[in-house]
């Protein structure tokens, strides 16, 4: 095998950022052309994407980036992105602009707004510590899963949400606990082929302009899922993606629900 040329080394170094969709458009195009003609690079990208997909399963409360750094992001990056995206982008819009460039489109916003009428059931029956139960949400025993869901709904401050398809029928439901953890139950999501997966997304921030973050890959035949969120959750959505999931989706949400 020939040693990689300097140009190939330069492109190889970008493969990780490519797998995370963290390249500018011109570099992404260069990398895509490169991996088309380089089997080894393509294999590496496949492997790196598997790692990227696994990140969707990382507990949100385990992130290491300190709050002070996030503050620096807003002060450092916002002016640059505002300049790049035009005069309508103001401070704080940097991530929305970034995600918009990655394919998050206004259709999500529109669907979220359309689903705003979805009923929210607030239950305040009794306080039950479900942390341990939620941490073990995946189980082949569907009745146990349903029982966990029911117990979660009884936690003080738990919020239930129906995820509704465009045709108006409810396809899944979830309960979100005050600590940001939650459980989702599949009611009528049909099994997919093995090369596809359902993926759950959490809508954060403002209902009219949500930031969309993966809450996890659900697999092709989900029964239930546990998840963890952090911050102001305004809703959830489900898409169908290729097996392994994606870091950002360009697909129409199959179902969506927002808290009133």
């Amino acid at each position, binding site marked *: 095998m020939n040693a990689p040329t300097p140009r190939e080394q330069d492109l190889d170094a970008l493969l*990780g950022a490519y797998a*995370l969709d963290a390249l500018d458009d011109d570099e992404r195009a260069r990398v895509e052309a490169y991996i088309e003609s380089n089997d080894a690079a393509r294999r590496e990208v496949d492997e*790196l994407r598997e790692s990227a997909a696994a*990140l969707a399963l990382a*507990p949100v409360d385990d992130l290491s980036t300190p709050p002070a750094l996030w503050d620096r*992001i807003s002060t450092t990056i916002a002016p640059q992105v505002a300049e790049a995206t035009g005069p309508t982008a103001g401070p704080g819009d940097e991530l929305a602009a970034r995600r918009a460039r990655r394919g998050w489109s206004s259709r999500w916003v529109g669907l979220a707004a359309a689903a705003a009428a979805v009923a929210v059931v607030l239950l305040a029956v009794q306080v039950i510590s479900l942390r341990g139960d939620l941490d073990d949400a995946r189980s082949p025993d569907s009745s146990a899963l349903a029982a966990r869901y029911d117990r979660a709904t009884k936690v003080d401050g738990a919020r239930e949400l129906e995820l509704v398809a465009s045709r108006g029928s409810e396809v899944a439901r979830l309960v979100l606990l005050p600590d940001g953890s939650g459980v989702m139950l599949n009611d009528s999501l049909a099994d997919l082929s093995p090369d596809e997966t359902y993926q759950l997304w959490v809508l954060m921030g403002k209902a009219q302009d949500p930031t969309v973050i993966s809450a996890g890959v659900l697999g092709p035949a989900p029964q239930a899922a546990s998840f963890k969120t952090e911050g102001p959750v305004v809703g959830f959505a489900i898409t169908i993606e290729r097996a392994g999931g994606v870091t950002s989706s360009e697909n129409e949400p199959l179902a969506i629900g927002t808290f009133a």
Partner: protein
Amino acid sequence: VVELTEGEAVRRALRALSDGERQAIELAYFGGHTYREVATILDQPEGTVKSRIRSGLLRLRAALIEQGVGE
């Protein structure tokens, strides 16, 4: 399904990364930034950041496989 066993495996795998790798990946993935933006945020050379993202993802994969996840 988001199974916690996998979530815990990812948590452990992330902890196996260097601070620099983990921070670069988190800012790119969870923060939605390009690696150039991450370099600006961290005040590090772009080459360092893109190398850390790549090496971090490869190490993450290796750590997951070692735990029996991802093969």
